[in-house]
């Protein structure tokens, strides 16, 4: 097990190298200049821009720039944001708590919806409950988040005026009031993302449970004289959970990556909106860092999913 883990981590190194190379090449090929603003400003002489470019080594060949970025990265220096003029790692750490809170709780909400509804619907397939759940699940994952997000803002912020539609990281209130304000502003983005994710997971949980519930060992469990709840929880859900856990684990990097669209709609100052604004501003060090961290997480959670498999399914052993 330990050796397996170590080997997988070692295999991850060349993959990450490849990923970083591709990312860097794509960004280098993309048009745009982080100091474009200076070019359009008549008060700034052209030499200033040229000097800045030279200072940051932007005119060097791509290969040299990549090696420079890579050596700095391995030393823990993630670069410097052209736009915000702070270190990239600081910038990411600033945005991280908000993202973790909003996206994390939305995934939690999705699980809390999907597990009970999916399992209950599967134990009574084609019943009224199942049909209603299916219908809502279809609606839920057919509506894109940018639509439901705007719809929510229209209803709850504009018409009813219950919830704020701009997310603020710096709420000045204190005590319980502070928590309440945070809760209120997080409610809509969490609901939009959670319902969307929950809808598709409900379908997934339902089909996973349906696959298991018709197997003989479930009937065996019933014939032993087990109560229906024990049968479902112990024999059905635990086996059905194997594919579900994989799906959820592979979704987890999204918590860090943030939901770009939703963060944009609700102005949530998370990683997703950081990525968008830095792409728009050609802020290459930030883009590079965010996407690279994202790839690391994808690899890490893949590994974690594999380890979880082994824990959930005794048929899998690691060598």
């Amino acid at each position: 097990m330990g050796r397996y883990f170590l080997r997988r981590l070692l295999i991850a190194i060349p993959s990450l190298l490849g990923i970083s190379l591709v990312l860097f090449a794509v960004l280098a090929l993309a048009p745009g200049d982080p100091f474009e603003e200076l070019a359009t400003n008549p008060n700034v002489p052209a030499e200033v821009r040229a000097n800045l470019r030279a200072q940051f080594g932007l005119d060097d060949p791509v290969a040299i720039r990549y090696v420079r970025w890579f050596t700095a990265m391995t030393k823990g220096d993630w670069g410097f944001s052209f736009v915000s003029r702070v270190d990239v790692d600081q910038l990411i750490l600033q945005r991280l708590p908000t993202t973790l809170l909003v996206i994390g709780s939305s995934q939690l909400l999705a699980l809390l919806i999907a597990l009970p509804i999916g399992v209950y619907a599967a134990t009574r397939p084609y019943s009224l409950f199942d049909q209603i759940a299916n219908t809502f699940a279809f609606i839920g994952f057919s509506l894109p988040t940018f639509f439901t997000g705007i719809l929510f803002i229209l209803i709850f912020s504009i018409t009813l005026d219950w919830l704020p539609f701009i997310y603020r990281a710096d709420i000045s209130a204190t005590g319980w009031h502070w928590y309440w304000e945070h809760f209120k502003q997080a409610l809509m983005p969490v609901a939009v993302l959670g319902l969307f994710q929950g809808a598709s997971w409900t379908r997934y949980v339902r089909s996973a449970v349906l696959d298991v519930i018709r197997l003989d060992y479930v009937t065996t469990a019933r014939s032993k004289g087990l109560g229906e709840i024990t049968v479902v929880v112990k024999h059905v859900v635990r086996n059905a959970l194997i594919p579900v856990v994989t799906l959820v684990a592979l979704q987890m990097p999204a918590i860090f990556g943030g939901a770009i669209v939703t963060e944009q709609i609700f102005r949530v100052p998370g990683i997703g909106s950081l990525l968008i604004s830095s792409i728009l501003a050609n802020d290459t060090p930030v883009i590079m860092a965010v996407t690279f961290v994202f790839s690391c997480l994808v690899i890490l959670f893949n590994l974690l999913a594999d380890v979880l498999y082994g824990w959930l399914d005794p048929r899998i052993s690691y060598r």
Partner: protein
Amino acid sequence: MGGPLLRVENLVKHFPVKGALFSREVDQVRAVDGVSFCIDAGETLGLVGESGCGKSTTGRCILRLTEPTSGEVWFDGRNVTAMDAQALRLVRRDMQIIFQDPYASLNPRMTVGAIVGEALTIHKLANNAQEYDDRVVHLLETVGLHADHMRRYPHEFSGGQRQRIGIARALAVSPKLIVCDEPVSALDVSVQAQVINLLEDLQQKFNLTYLFVAHDLSVVEHISTRVVVMYLGRIVEIATARELYTTPKHPYTEALLSAAPIPDPQVKRKRIVLEGDVPNPMRPPSGCHFHPRCPRATERCASEAPLLREIAPGRVSACHFSA
């Protein structure tokens, strides 16, 4: 006590076939269509018929693992079909089932010990951990497995061993009746014999009663005291094993027996080859279900369903012409 251990009366199971829109019931599959028989304590009743004739469904309905549409099942003087969930759980200490597919019938995430022992916990048959372990080990050894198999998982075993685990599991609660739902059909022939012998040994040792569902006629002949033959959800003939195999009374039984291979190429015999397929159980033929394929069918068979009637003591047949 007297009387049979299990009495099945007019058991019916219709599976609804639903239409796509608004899930209206559009039709029914008549899997079991009025089946009645008895099993005496200590005997083995074979239940044979081709695929889809409702044998497995009958077995499952008796244990109410499939809810019967109508009819009654009396076990040990109690009406199983009228029991509530609580009483049903209790009666499952006395009635157990062994499934056909030993690969699907064991939970892959539980150790063999947990699979066999779970019922002990449910029915509080072990007072402490030591007693529980002893019981599980004893059960495993009874079916020819070892004590150290307890901590292993089902996928580490072969088909025959898995079926032994399934048997140990069924034995855990010391049942009176075991429904064997094609317990050897999924196994190699050599292993089949071992499992059959094991089942016979266990029957002697624990005074078990079996309902043995199978489609392999030679296996059924070997193990059964009496045999029930089913066709398309109905019983066509009941007889003792010897009588059925020597002098079948129903034309379907005759055809079934003539289709079973005899392991001697020198033997020449008349084969009755049935024409056509088993009819659609959603729309069974009128009158006698067997008449479209029956070599002896007359007009009467198409209009009038033959009743099961006693043609000799302990012998029943559902054919107008059996005598």
